[in-house]
């Protein structure tokens, strides 16, 4: 029986963070890139809650996580609207093909 401690949470959050960065860099679909950003935000959330629980920092970590969840929702809403508009203008959401602005 393993005792789940702070270190396990930190490993999970680090893996999520790396997956998020990996997704942002390698995915071509704009929606997938946005999902990578969500992963990054959630990895930070895990950190906040785990540190608050195991470091005895009171409720501040959980409160921060709540704020982040709200902001992530707001950001996702705006990003989706922008992607919809992109689809209307370019008929694609592949970020590599959206390159009218170049040197």
């Amino acid at each position, binding site marked *: 029986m393993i005792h789940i401690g702070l270190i396990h949470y930190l490993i999970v*959050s680090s893996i999520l*963070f790396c997956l*998020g*960065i990996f997704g*942002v860099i390698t995915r071509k679909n*704009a929606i997938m*890139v*946005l999902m*990578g*950003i969500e992963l*990054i*935000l959630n*990895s*930070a*959330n895990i*950190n*906040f809650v*785990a*540190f608050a629980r195991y*470091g005895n*920092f009171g409720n*501040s*970590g959980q409160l*921060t996580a709540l*704020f*982040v969840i709200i*902001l992530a929702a*707001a*950001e996702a809403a*705006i*990003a989706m*609207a*922008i*992607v919809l*508009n*992109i689809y209307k*203008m*370019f008929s694609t959401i592949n*970020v590599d093909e*959206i*390159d*009218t*602005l170049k*040197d």
Partner: protein
Amino acid sequence: MNQIVNSLQYIKPEISAAIALVVLVIVDLVMGKNKKYLAPVMILGLLVTGYFIIDQFNISSFAFGSGNNKYGLLAIDSFGSFFKLLIIFSSIIIVFFTLASDEIKKANERLGEYYALIWGMIIGMFFMISAADLIVVYISLELVSLSSYVLAGITKDTLRNSEASLKYVIYGGVSSGIMLFGISILYGITGTTNIYEINALLQSQQIQGLIVTLSVILIFAGFGFKISAAPFHFWTPDVYEGAPITITTYLSVASKAAGVALLLRFTKITFIDSVNPDGSWNIISLIDWRSFLIIISILTMTLGNFAALWQNNMKRLLAYSSVAHVGYILLGIIALSNEGMMAVLIYFVIYTIMNLGAFFVVMLIANKIGSEELDDYKGLGKAAPVLTVSLAIFLVSLIGLPPTAGFIAKLYLFLALINAKMIVIAVIALLNTVVSVYYYFRVLKYLFINSSEKEIEPFGLNIPNLIMLLVLVTSTLVLGIYFTPLVNFAKNSITLLGF
């Protein structure tokens, strides 16, 4: 509860801005298709907010502390008021720009949202400037970013507008996410998000330097994105070129001002041990923040200046030039002294005026000839002498040649660097300035020397635009000769709460 009510008196400008936003939305709803009252309502709101900022100029206090904690979420001081006034000033000018812009006139039915989102940015920037807690930093940064993502694509019907907002939202989302991850690590090490408490813990030397350094570098991703410092500047040229030109101007002036204010406050509060009587700062030995900033600064100005050399689009050229200017501004922070901080404040006021002027001329020319490409600028020197001569003055000021204001700005920066005994870096910055001469003068060559194949109809300016232009030109020239009031104003504004 009592503390919250007491703190409300310190955030009068923010409250006033929030009320102005609501009023603006209501006016827009009531007036329906009639959009001509929006600009006066906007200006009125800005003036009232400006009055409240001047009113609390000399107050320094924490706001929104909790119970037994002597620090608060916000730090109200004259440094913050200085930058808030700068933002009010640039917002007022932007409203005038909006009235003159043909690009925004095409999206007239969205003018209500446009102004409301600018208010959103203003509120975010105010909180960013006075933030003393990393959570407030993150939330206010997101508030500014979310509003500007939409503003970058506000006209919705051109390809480059939509592309600009997509690129902005992706780069912005990633860098604020990385910043949040850094904040979470710093929270784990220190148990707090308040930068004053973090400073006290760093001074006690009980924590490991390596992890703190890592988390601070991650946090810098967010700041670097806002001020477009390398290597987080990739969005700058695309977004600046694609966004409507009023928004480009606003991003290059106001949101950069808020970012620099945030970075200055973060640097001074978090990493400074004490301030010597001669004004230089003692940095905490745990983190080599100075070397980090030196690398970022040199990288930023070199990349900005060299990439600008082969730009053929005026907006893109000014975007790279603004990246280079961020590099110069970081030099003032590197000096780590009160003198350097004063130099940054002076630089920013002057940078705001000359950048507003340069973008204004580019916008007026684009209104007439419908293009920002340098090839279409050929022979404009004859067709529109007033416009092009003013553009020349702004560009000379951006280089930093006397007798314009840009010279004074650079002079104070270099003096601060030399007094901090950083001659090598001053020389590198000077060489960078020499490189920048080439691309600014290239624009002038297109305007005055190259002649156009097709005849360009001479065009003038209408009276309001002419007045606006004259105001900006005279302030650029006058500040180059008579700058004592500005210097004194900056000297009085360098007090940060706590030091």
